[in-house]
């Protein structure tokens, strides 16, 4: 039986910086030595709204990158879309505000032991964890190609410094305001052949992940995806975040995406049963 990430702890940690980047906020948080235990794919659960908050649940955010610096023991970066009550509150917090966090949580992207050619596909803020992942893969000698999509250009998150670890970066927007017009999944089939891709890593809306699976299903390409289901606890005790997953025998069971995920083997997710009665 899967267990909660064994490094998970609850801490209070200060915001070091909070900058607007396109339609997102980039938050840097001082988490000290914990940064070494955070792997690409892991997430953090944050309490929002302060002491008297009417939001009783934490929100999950992908840990976009970690780094250690001389000034701060270690930091993590989050990319937050100000959307509803919680994320808007978070984006409004300034430097110095101390956040209540539980981290690192969830599974991490599997890193191949040998250099392979990989394609990283991100939708919206889903690109956030891909840059940290790219660094790790690039350091392993993998060729890293990246494909980012969003409804519009302002929702593309692709920081300058992130591109260092990426061999190529392609952008697709539905309104054509940046890069190619169209869906991020449109070019994947061709890219797999052209670039001889061995593994696809993906993060974004469930529909995007399912579309990628449809493409990789009958190929030899592995698909590691970070799923996103509404999570009440993030630590495996509430059963709200489940995703239908097939085992070897074809039986489908509901696994918790907070501890058996968010990173899952795309081929094992029963995409046609997501949001359906089994």
């Amino acid at each position: 039986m899967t267990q909660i990430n064994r490094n998970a702890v609850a801490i209070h940690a200060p915001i070091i910086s909070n900058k607007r980047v396109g339609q997102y906020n980039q938050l840097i948080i001082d988490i000290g030595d914990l940064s070494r235990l955070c792997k690409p794919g892991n997430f953090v659960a944050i309490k929002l709204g302060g002491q008297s908050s009417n939001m009783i649940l934490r929100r999950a955010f992908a840990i976009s990158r970690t780094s250690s610096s001389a000034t701060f023991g270690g930091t993590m970066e989050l990319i937050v879309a100000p959307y509803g009550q919680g994320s808007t509150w978070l984006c409004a917090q300034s430097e110095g505000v101390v956040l209540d966090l539980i981290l690192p949580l969830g599974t991490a992207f599997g890193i191949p032991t040998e250099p392979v050619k990989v394609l990283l596909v991100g939708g919206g803020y889903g690109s956030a964890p891909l840059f940290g992942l790219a660094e790790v893969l690039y350091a392993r000698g993998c060729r890293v190609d990246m494909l980012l999509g969003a409804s519009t250009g302002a929702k593309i998150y692709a920081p300058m410094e992130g591109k260092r670890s990426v061999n190529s970066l392609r952008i697709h927007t539905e309104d054509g305001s940046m890069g190619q017009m169209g869906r991020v999944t449109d070019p994947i089939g061709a890219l797999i052949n052209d670039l001889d891709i061995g593994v696809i890593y993906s993060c974004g809306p469930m529909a995007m992940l399912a579309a990628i699976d449809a493409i990789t299903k009958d190929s030899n390409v592995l698909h590691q995806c970070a799923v996103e289901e509404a999570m009440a606890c993030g630590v495996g005790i509430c059963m709200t975040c489940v995703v239908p997953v097939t085992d070897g025998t074809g039986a489908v069971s509901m696994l918790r995406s907070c501890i058996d995920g968010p990173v899952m083997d795309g081929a094992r997710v029963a995409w046609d049963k997501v949001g359906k009665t089994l």
Partner: protein
Amino acid sequence: MTSVDFSTTLGNAWFASPVFTASGCASSGRELAQFFPLRDIGGVVTKSVMSRPRTGRPTPRMAETPSGMLNSIGLQGPGIDAFIAKDIPYLIEEKARIIVSIAGETIEEYSTVARKLRSVAGISAIEVNISCPNVENRGLVFACDPDASRRVIDGVKRTVGGELPIIAKLSPDVTDLVSIARGVVDAGADALALINTVLGMAINLETMRPYLAGKTGGLSGPAIKPIAIRAVYQVHEALPKIPILGMGGIATAKDALEMIVAGASGVSIGTASFSNPTALITIATELKELLATKGFASLRDAIGFAHRSGQVD
């Protein structure tokens, strides 16, 4: 360290602490064990188990609401056999006190599940979650039907015999909670668990449909605390000798004390663990101090105190 006697009893079961998990809010116990030793709390109330494995409801299964949340899990679980084979031994190994919550779709299913538990060692009590739809009666929730509730408890009692205390868990979504409580006590319940979630709904304005795949869901968290306190107060007033495991929105030691002076012999912490996995430990520690501050020598003295304390009138 305060010298308050913190122990409590539910029926003939004794517990060193009155702070328990709430059914369905602690999974199998393993996950919380990463944050504190399970033997440090009053006991683990396991998620409601049925006779067979269940995959539960489709997602989304949750929606946050002001100071509360809705859930519609649909009793996902491994079924009683796998539960007895895997979960019970783990909890025993962790030296946790165990209250097994059981559920069913028919009166017979409750008895079937209870029968399998009868001979399992290491269980302190059975909580009977009767807030399930009765498939034999148009899906009408057992706990909303005085007759069906009585019959479920009666069946479980006959199956289990007199040894294991039976705690009947009631739904607040009824016109006359006290009469339902009286009914299940007459049928053999040794204690009551109050309250299960309150039926609610949220609409997703992006999709213009109910947020939850199951449309309605159970409301829990601080939003329902006043409903829970009222339920415990009313039932304790009517049945002062029946121990109550009180729950619904408890997030702090003060909330727990409110529940206890309203009439609860113990408290279950559900939703609060979702945002604070060590909530049970914090609440227990602070509750003990609070009892001392308020001048109670024992938890027992505080139970139902709001019914006895000097009326100014």
